[in-house]
């Protein structure tokens, strides 16, 4: 079927697709997200294809195989979901496939080995919706991910896709903006600026040309919701952008996307082509007379390009340096034209808000932060992955109920939110509701929703140093405080972690934080103080231990620790001695070994290979 020329035709087409699908057809959904693919999802999907082909006649049923976007529960990939049973299998290998077909698909039997087992209660859970990781979620932005094939536009249309656009085409542009305003949607990229207000300011500017843009330059380390949405449901973003363009009278859109996300680029590219073919992009969308198309701009590996003015310069084919935002980009953005830039998750929410109404959306979340938010729960936590929950959930609920607690039963120390612009929030504040304002008050920020769980083996001074080092490498170098201040901060933090710190180091760090906050040109610099100030505020004792006792309590900072072998635990297996690059571990077979600390370079290989946990850090 070619282009769809009217709204009625789209509805007819949707019914046509539905008619072609038998509801009870067993379907195998193999997650093809970056994580699962890396864990070997492709051979699993191939094994299903092979076996279905082989047994096709014998089975006497059709089995649909869908390679979907990321289910979010990446820790346990490759993930295979079975419909209509609603069963989720984890860590599936090609050799499991025959058994799955035989037992589960043919006779409805659950294979215990492959289902979720709760690490604390040992409960076995087969059903997708009952697994704690999914149970507490409320998926809006992630609504289709894992359930549809992102490379097939029919899947999206069947799931109700482009209905929001149809509805919007019947609305006055001004009413679309009002709907978004009333929903209370705030930008999901970091700043949390009210989306409707942004749109309203853009249309208020007199101009014949306007741009809508999508920021998929997801730079905060530890956040990958935008990647997941682009890989798993690109049409939701495209539909959101078309609705935004319609509301603001824009005819050209841009998606700025990280080139480090090859699968996202690929799926977005094919989705744009499919949308054009179907008449959902291009001239006179669905016969409405409204023209709009979207271009892709691939990022070049520069964190600062997530900043709006830098992003726009990068799109225009320049070095991505920010400029002073004394004139906002809604007034003078790309090519000095009024421009609305929203992030992936924000755009993905738009069609649902239009479909279900502002009131529905505003009914979720908290007073100041409406709706749901996608978080990527990573670090030292049992269940790593993407979760979408109503705003206002507490950190503790996120980490303990959904995340299944801290890895290896270690002590929960803190969470880091907001990437390099955010800060660390200690365990004692973990009843804090996660929303834009609470996090900012606590000295961190929402950022794009990365939640990095830290345990007792995480050194908070090292974390501060990590982020400052990150920013030193990512600073564009345009303004003095950021370009020259960050390296000085890194010097001071390096001194502290290497045992050269004095009392004045912390005072000087605070002074530089003040300088960056007030004096830097763009958000990268003005928020750079957060990782340092929040760790000083909540973990001053760790700074003091490094400075005064010359000790790293978490056992991370190399200059302040020594490796030793516990003679009680050592079995004398010689594995550490064989792996030691310095050849400084000695001992007879079956006798406790000893590390020559004078020769030891603290590379940690011995600890990594020891299966008896006998190598200790002190």
């Amino acid at each position, binding site marked *: 079927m070619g282009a769809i020329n009217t709204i009625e035709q789209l509805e007819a087409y949707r019914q046509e697709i539905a008619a072609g699908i038998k509801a009870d057809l067993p379907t195998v959904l193999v997650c093809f997200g970056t994580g699962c693919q890396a864990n070997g999802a492709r051979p699993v999907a191939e094994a299903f294809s092979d076996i279905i082909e082989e047994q096709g006649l014998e089975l006497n049923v059709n089995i649909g195989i869908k390679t979907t976007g990321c289910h979010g529960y990446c820790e346990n990939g490759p993930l295979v979901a079975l419909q209509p049973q609603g069963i989720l299998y984890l860590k599936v290998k090609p050799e499991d496939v025959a058994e799955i077909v035989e037992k589960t698909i043919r006779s409805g039997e659950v294979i215990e080995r492959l289902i979720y087992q709760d690490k604390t209660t040992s409960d076995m859970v087969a059903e997708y919706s009952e697994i704690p990781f999914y149970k507490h979620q409320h998926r809006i932005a992630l609504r289709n991910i894992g359930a549809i094939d992102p490379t097939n536009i029919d899947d999206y249309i069947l799931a109700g896709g482009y209905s929001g656009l149809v509805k919007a085409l019947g609305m006055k542009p001004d009413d679309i903006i009002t709907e978004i305003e009333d929903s209370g949607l705030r930008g999901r990229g970091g700043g949390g600026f009210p989306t409707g207000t942004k749109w309203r300011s853009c249309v208020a500017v007199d101009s014949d040309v306007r741009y809508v843009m999508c920021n998929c330059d997801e730079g905060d380390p530890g956040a990958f919701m935008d990647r997941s949405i682009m890989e798993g449901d690109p049409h939701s973003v495209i539909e959101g952008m078309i609705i935004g363009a319609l509301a603001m009278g824009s005819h050209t859109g841009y998606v700025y996307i990280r080139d480090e996300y090859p699968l996202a680029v690929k799926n977005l590219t094919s989705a744009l082509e499919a949308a054009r073919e179907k008449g959902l992009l291009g001239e006179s969308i669905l016969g409405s007379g409204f023209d709009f198309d979207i271009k892709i701009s691939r990022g070049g590996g520069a964190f600062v390009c997530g900043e709006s003015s830098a992003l726009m310069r990068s799109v225009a084919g320049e070095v991505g340096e920010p400029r002073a935002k*004394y004139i906002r980009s809604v007034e003078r953005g790309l090519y000095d034209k009024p421009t609305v830039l929203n992030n992936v998750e924000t755009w993905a929410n738009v069609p649902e808000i239009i479909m279900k109404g502002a009131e529905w959306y505003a009914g979720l979340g908290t007073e100041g932060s409406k709706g749901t938010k996608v978080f990527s729960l990573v670090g030292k936590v049992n269940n790593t992955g993407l979760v979408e929950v109503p705003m206002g959930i507490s950190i503790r609920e996120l980490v303990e109920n959904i995340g299944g607690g801290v890895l290896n039963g270690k002590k929960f120390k803190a969470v880091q939110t907001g990437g390099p612009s955010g800060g660390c929030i200690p365990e004692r504040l973990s009843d804090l509701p996660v929303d834009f304002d609470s996090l900012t008050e606590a000295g961190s920020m929402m950022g794009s929703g990365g939640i990095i769980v830290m345990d007792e083996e995480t050194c908070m001074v090292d974390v501060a140093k990590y982020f400052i080092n990150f920013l030193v490498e990512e600073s564009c*170098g345009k303004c*003095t*405080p950021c*370009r*020259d201040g960050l390296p000085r901060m890194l010097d001071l933090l390096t001194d502290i972690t290497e045992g050269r710190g004095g009392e004045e180091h912390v005072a000087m760090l605070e002074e530089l934080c003040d300088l960056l906050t007030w004096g830097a040109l763009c958000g990268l610099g003005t928020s750079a103080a957060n990782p340092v100030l929040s760790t000083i505020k909540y973990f001053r004792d760790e700074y003091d231990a490094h400075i005064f006792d010359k000790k790293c309590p978490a056992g991370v900072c190399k200059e302040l620790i020594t490796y030793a072998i516990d003679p009680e635990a050592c079995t004398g297996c010689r594995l550490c001695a064989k792996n030691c690059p310095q050849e400084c571990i000695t001992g007879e077979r079956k006798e406790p070994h000893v590390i020559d600390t004078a020769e030891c370079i603290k590379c940690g290989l011995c600890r990594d290979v020891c299966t008896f946990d006998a190598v200790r850090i002190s």
Partner: protein
Amino acid sequence: MEKISVKIDGRTFEAAKDQCILEVAHENGIYIPSLCYNSEVASSGGSCRVCLVEAHQGGRMRLVTSCNYPVRKGLEVKTDTPLVHRIRRGVLELLMARVPDSEAIREMAAAEGPTDVRFRLDEGEYDRYKCIACALCTNVCADVVGVFAIGMVNRGADKKPDTPYGKPSDVCIGCGACAYACPTGAITMKEKDGVRRIWGRDFDMVTCSVCGTPYIPQAQVDWIVRTTGKDRSFFDKCPDHR
């Protein structure tokens, strides 16, 4: 042109709408230091941060670079507050740590008080000499001269102006505008025996037929002739003897 009134340090001045704070202040005898800004160069400014001032508007205060912040109705500017001086001193201390050889920076810092540098001096991958990476030179080359011989290369602390690959540029006309514009005198331009050396390239100078002074690079003459159609003989004499 629309005129508006703006308050700076308690005094009210008339200014053109969208004129930058720095210019309004300077026109009215209020000193604000600046390095990277030149009113003749449209794209200059905003990078060195020594001209930061308090901008009060709509009940909100923030520090803004006065060189590119447009004056608006109801704006109140404060250039002489503890916050302004604290941040400016911090910026200058960082610059001194970066380019200890620069007299211009030292003098500006001395005007702000103590001039000791507590930070370890930075040993970068290249000799920073006196360059504060403010980009005024590259902005002049691009916006005013229009030859784009140099650009700001690298990022972060290694950012600096340079020709492509650090090689003598084919398009450079040796005009020296970059060197004249540089606020810290960091660009070396030397002349000897009728030859000018800048950015690693030698330029033969045209000599004035009257006074015999080599006064303009041949490449610059060629470029002006090519782009403006001016008669070549015009350059036989230096501006003093035309």
